[in-house]
């Protein structure tokens, strides 16, 4: 086992990883930008290194700063968390070249799977179902148009180097294709430094279900069941749960088997997530493979009792998995809500600021992963994730009631600070979510419903005042 691990991330996930290290008896090193000098992980870690100014590209994305920090503190391994350098094969390779273990898959595997167009082809060869679409990166808008015609609209354009729900656009008619192609390309170039795109059929009213796998260096691959992450807004997940509710007989097992087959086919090592789209007819197709820890990993941990971060670290240290597939048992239902510092009334615009009150919920079977505290300044430099509230219960109705209770307890306040707490409770209460009949379209449906009910209320009010005016006239 390593004696020192450096956590190359910030926020709640840095603290999450540092906690796993502490429990393993491993010394932890935090790295921080100037904006995070008072962060929770800096307080928690055994040692910390100031790596740069607030902009990520000069701090959390600065490979030399992180490698130097690891060298200075004698770290034998680096855990990249999610985001930032977690899916950068060059970083993994540089770690290796400096004799530092990258806690994640080997660089060449990450390279293969990080190219989403190549991964599609690779996985299709391994026998996984993929949606009709590109076999490689698109070379022109004309090629995209031809391909879209073949597979049928709607289609989705995605960045080959994309991830985290960014760099994609749904196209519903041939007239919109060229513009979408150019815009998505420009976006991909700006965000990922790679403007290559691919295309596949887009499924409306689909569900997003993903399978967690773990692979050790001795060739063992297991899955930890699935998560349903269908509640999304603009491809950003908001609510996740495990297991996926209301799946027909056999579908779950087929997805597990596909994920394990895919991981084994590329010689995967570490934790990976196979993201699938499930159509209204219960067909499933692979969307992409994430070569890192997922934000929503806690729901899987709550139903399996397995600490995924701990497993990542022990796998990276060369230890075999401590359980076999038949020893992994899932119990009950876990739900997670992402509480963001965003204003739902202003189209989810970031609403950062100083937290004057921050009182997370507690009580039975509630887990809150957060780096925030009263007095913490939520800055404008990073993403708006404030906390992940997760609950466990023996069944789904109890889990939903518990989550509503927990969110109701959660107090966050500060000048200018707004959160998605109220929005999350409304989503949980939606009949489609309550009955597990929701799809990735739920959030847009909710905004349509909200607009309609506002209109209806306005109309009712207008009718009422008209009636009142009429009454007055009659009376007069």
């Amino acid at each position, binding site marked *: 086992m390593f004696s020192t691990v450096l956590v190359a991330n910030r926020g709640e996930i840095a603290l999450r990883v540092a906690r796993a290290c502490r429990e393993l008896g491993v010394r932890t090193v935090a790295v921080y930008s*100037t904006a995070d000098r008072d962060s929770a992980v800096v307080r928690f870690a055994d040692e910390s290194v100031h790596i*740069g*100014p607030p902009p990520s590209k000069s701090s959390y994305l*600065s490979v*030399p*700063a992180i490698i*130097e*920090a690891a060298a*200075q503190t004698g770290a034998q391994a680096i855990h990249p968390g999610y985001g930032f350098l977690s899916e950068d094969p060059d970083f993994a390779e540089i770690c290796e070249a400096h004799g530092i273990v990258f806690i994640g898959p080997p660089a060449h595997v990450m390279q293969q799977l990080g190219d989403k167009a190549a991964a599609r082809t690779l996985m299709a060869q391994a026998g996984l179902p993929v949606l009709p679409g590109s076999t490689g990166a698109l070379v022109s808008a004309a090629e995209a148009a031809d391909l879209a015609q073949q597979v049928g609209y709607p289609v989705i354009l995605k960045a080959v180097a994309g991830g985290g729900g960014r760099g994609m656009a749904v196209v519903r008619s041939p007239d919109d294709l060229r513009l979408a192609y150019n815009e998505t390309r420009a976006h991909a170039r700006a965000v990922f430094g790679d403007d290559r795109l691919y295309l596949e059929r887009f499924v409306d009213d689909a569900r997003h279900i993903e399978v967690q796998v773990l692979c050790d260096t001795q060739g063992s691959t297991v899955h930890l069941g699935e998560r349903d992450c269908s509640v999304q807004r603009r491809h950003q997940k908001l609510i996740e749960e495990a297991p996926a509710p209301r799946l027909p007989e056999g579908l779950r097992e087929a997805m597990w088997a596909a994920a394990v087959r895919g991981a084994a086919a590329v010689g995967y090592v570490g934790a990976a997530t196979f993201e699938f789209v499930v159509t209204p007819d219960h067909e499933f197709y692979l969307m992409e493979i994430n070569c890192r820890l997922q934000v929503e990993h806690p729901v899987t941990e709550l139903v399996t009792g397995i600490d995924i971060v701990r497993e990542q670290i022990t796998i990276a240290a060369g230890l075999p998995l401590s359980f076999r597939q038949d020893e992994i048992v899932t119990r009950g239902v876990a739900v997670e809500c992402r509480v963001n510092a965003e204003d739902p009334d202003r189209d989810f615009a970031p609403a950062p600021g100083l937290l004057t009150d921050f009182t997370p919920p507690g009580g039975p079977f509630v887990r809150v992963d957060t780096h925030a505290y009263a007095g913490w300044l939520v800055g404008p430099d990073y993403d708006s994730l404030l906390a992940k509230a997760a609950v466990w219960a023996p069944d789904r109705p109890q889990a939903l009631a518990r989550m509503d209770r927990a969110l109701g307890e959660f107090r966050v306040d500060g000048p200018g600070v707004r959160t998605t707490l109220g929005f999350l409770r409304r989503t949980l209460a939606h009949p489609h979510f309550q009955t597990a009949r929701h799809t990735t379209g739920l959030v847009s449906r909710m905004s349509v419903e909200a607009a309609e009910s506002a209109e209806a209320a306005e109309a009712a009010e207008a009718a009422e005042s008209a009636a009142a005016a009429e009454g007055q006239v009659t009376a007069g």
Partner: protein
Amino acid sequence: MKPDLEQAERQENSALDAVCRSVAQLARSTPHPPLRIRMQDGQTTVEVEWPDRVRNGQRPADEPSPGDAHLDGPPLAEADELNYVRAPMVGTFYHAGSPDDQPYVAVGDVVLVGQAVGVVEAMKMMNTITAEAAGRVVEILTPNAHPVEYDQRLIALEPVDEDTVDRP
């Protein structure tokens, strides 16, 4: 009030006055005035807090110059704020360009804006560090070949009037 108590208090007051005078004198006699002086009547406690860097012949740049008004002393030239050359990245700080070279600067040297004052090595890349303000080197705060973090103070510079400096 009883006469003996009155007398005792008078004596105590004069003792306190004497202490105050000595402290003020002491403060004026040193080039670096104390950050804070706390005196207590009764058990006659005197606490003096000196600036952090007095030992090194400097005072922290961030601290306001304290005490001048209260102590009624002349403003001290040394109370001018120091400038610091800071590490622009995580790495290893070197005083010289290579092990065989002379250090770029030594205490007492006057450096100009843009003058090389050291090197920070990060991932085998040598990054020359230059002064952003002219000044006289008061102290080299980080020893040669030591690890540095981002923004760490490397060299303390006392401001000088650039017009008076002979340009090479």
